């Protein structure tokens, strides 16, 4: 059983808390992404799982085994470093063979395993090349192969695609996923790129400043973010959030968006939670879930920027606190300075408490 359980995991460096009481369950064979901006504690968590750092408090369990005191050489995890940490004074073959060699495997056995892994990762023609003269793309595969040859039940990857050029990243994402599916390993993947997490992971653990924000499938964190941080971090671009006051109107519960001059309706389910609420709320909607309303009801805003990126066009509207982005197909034909009326799709509107940032649920 290669499940991973983190219980109350905490790590402090002097005054600085890198990780605050994290609880996480990773299922056998699951691809779990630890996602968050720099400094959120994801790499620290990974290092502790690998045994490279000791937790200040809390426990790490692989299956039933508590990993406290188990040195990093004995945990049976594969680890791919951000900088690959390839043994540059050895050939590709020697790099791949390193693990089995250290464990005293027989030469024939080593050769067989190296051959198999090289075949899988398309490294066969490069086996006898020196590792210090290879491109990053190849080094990445060697790094993966070197760990994979040990057939670890748990595979840890620390931002392995951040040094790779954009085009190759897409290729590697597919390959990594295939690898994981083939070997059915439990994979923990650290990244700051939400697209990577969304594409590859079975579940995503979103982190910020040492605190776990939300754990869920890609669609779960996209559709139902538990707080403002997750709402903004997931999605390209992230969720739009406009400040407003809940108010009663003849159409039911609406939110008064102040200077924007509109009062869009709020989801019915929130009526009980919001009725009589004093504070401001954040009215949230995703850029992909708006429609262009010709002269209809919606938010009228000036277009400030248009990014046409391949299949879609990102339109920036409004200024300052009232700035939003909308994603349309390329035939949208908007220009800077024009006023556009955008109407968020009612069913995808999410509301957050302005003070705490927490999502408001139907109650």
């Amino acid at each position, binding site marked *: 059983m290669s499940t991973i359980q983190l219980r109350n995991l905490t790590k402090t460096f002097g005054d600085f808390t890198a990780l605050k009481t994290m609880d996480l369950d990773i299922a056998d064979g699951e691809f779990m992404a630890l996602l968050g*901006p*720099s400094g959120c504690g994801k790499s620290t968590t990974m290092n502790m799982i690998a045994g490279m750092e000791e937790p200040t408090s809390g426990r790490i369990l692989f299956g039933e085994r508590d990993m406290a005191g188990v040195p990093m050489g004995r945990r049976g995890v594969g680890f791919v470093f951000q900088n690959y940490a390839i043994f540059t004074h050895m050939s590709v073959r020697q790099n791949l063979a390193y693990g089995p060699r250290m464990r005293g495997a027989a030469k024939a056995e080593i050769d067989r395993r190296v051959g198999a892994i090289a075949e899988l990762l398309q490294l066969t023609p490069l086996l006898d090349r020196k590792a210090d003269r290879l*491109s990053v793309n190849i080094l990445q595969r060697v790094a993966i192969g070197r760990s994979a040859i040990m057939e670890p039940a748990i595979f840890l990857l620390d931002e392995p695609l951040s040094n790779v*050029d*954009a*085009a190759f990243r*897409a290729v590697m994402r597919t390959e990594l996923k295939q690898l994981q599916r083939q070997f059915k390993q439990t994979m923990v993947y650290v990244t*700051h*790129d*939400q*697209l990577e997490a*969304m*594409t590859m992971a079975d579940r995503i653990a979103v982190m910020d400043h040492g605190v776990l924000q939300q754990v869920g499938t*890609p*669609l779960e964190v*996209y*559709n139902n973010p538990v707080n403002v941080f997750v709402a903004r*971090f*997931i*999605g*390209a*671009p*992230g969720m739009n959030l406009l400040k407003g006051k809940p108010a009663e109107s003849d159409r039911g519960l609406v939110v008064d968006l102040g200077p924007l001059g509109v009062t869009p309706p709020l989801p019915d389910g929130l009526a009980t939670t919001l009725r009589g609420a004093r504070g401001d709320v954040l009215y949230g909607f*995703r*850029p*992909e*879930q708006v429609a262009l309303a010709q002269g209809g009801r919606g938010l009228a805003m000036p277009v400030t*920027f248009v*990014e*046409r*990126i*391949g*299949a*879609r066009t*990102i339109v*920036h509207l409004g200024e300052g606190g009232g700035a939003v982005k909308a*994603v349309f*197909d*390329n035939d949208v034909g908007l220009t800077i300075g024009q006023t556009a009326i955008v109407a968020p799709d009612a069913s995808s509107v999410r509301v957050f408490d302005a003070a705490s940032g927490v999502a408001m649920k139907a109650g």
Partner: protein
Amino acid sequence: MADIVFRNVTKRYRNTLAVDDASFTVNDNEFFCFFGPPLSGKSTILRLVLGLEAPDTGEILIGGRPVNAVSPAERNVAMVFQNLALFPHMSARENVRFPLVERKVAEAQIEKRVADVAAKLHIGHILHKPPAQLSGGERQRVAIARALVRDPNAYLMDDPISALDARLREETRVELKRIQRELGKTLIYVTHDQEEAMSIADRIAILENGKIRQIGAPAEIYDRPASTYVARLLGSPVMNILKSVRGEGGVEAAEGTIRIADRAAPADAVEIGLRPEDIKVNPWADGGQGRPARVFEVEPLGGYTVVTLAAGQARLKALLRGQPNIRPDAMVAISCEPARVHYFGQSGGALAR
């Protein structure tokens, strides 16, 4: 006038042809981007513009003036480095002043220029701070200010934001575009990120092994790529390129799973290109025409869903809006509007319909 012209420029390094017969014009005030995979010649072109290298053959003109023999200092082209290279022991103001102090410009002039450039970049209020106390974005603007304080003909940036977090990259590229627009200066920008290039460039030059393959506005290159190479470079997921054969009244590909009825399809087309967002996926109705494809994988990205289809021996990726209800192993019919199909000939070049 600060346009930059290359005429048949070639540059060799020992046995490698880093730049191969490159000709282009960067117009005044243009945000011009060089885009291509690593080692395609982008950085070499920058060095040629700056004057750190001399071309083996060909001419380089800046503002109409041939500059082949002109030293970097005299070309009046400024560079903003990826790591910004701000002097840590000086304040932001001293950093920005530095190029002018070096050239022994009069103090009054220096003050005026610094104030000018600081106003344009909105950094007047932080000029007294040392770089260590500034945020990443502020530091970048100080670096740009330092490049611009000499009022250069053009400024260059070599992959300035690739080292940033994904989120920050998205915000910073918009910032950079805004700054360039406000300043109205020619900017030559190098990147290997296709989203970045498409988002902010006025025009892009696509490079392959030192050769310029296509120059044009991002939309133009995206909609009408000149070759399969260019077509594959822009767009995510990558354009699906399949071998095609002439079929009834059109073309067929992927063992009949794709049939395009298009009388205008060029006769010598050997491959077709379909952008993932142009592929329409519908549930397979028994008795339908052609052959079904099987859904291999579904990747929900929230606002979009990438569906990988097994069509014959080929794998295609389709980009569908939203979160459609589609499951792996479902049988589907693939179609595409004829007008959105790209045709390519024997050598990979695009063919017109």
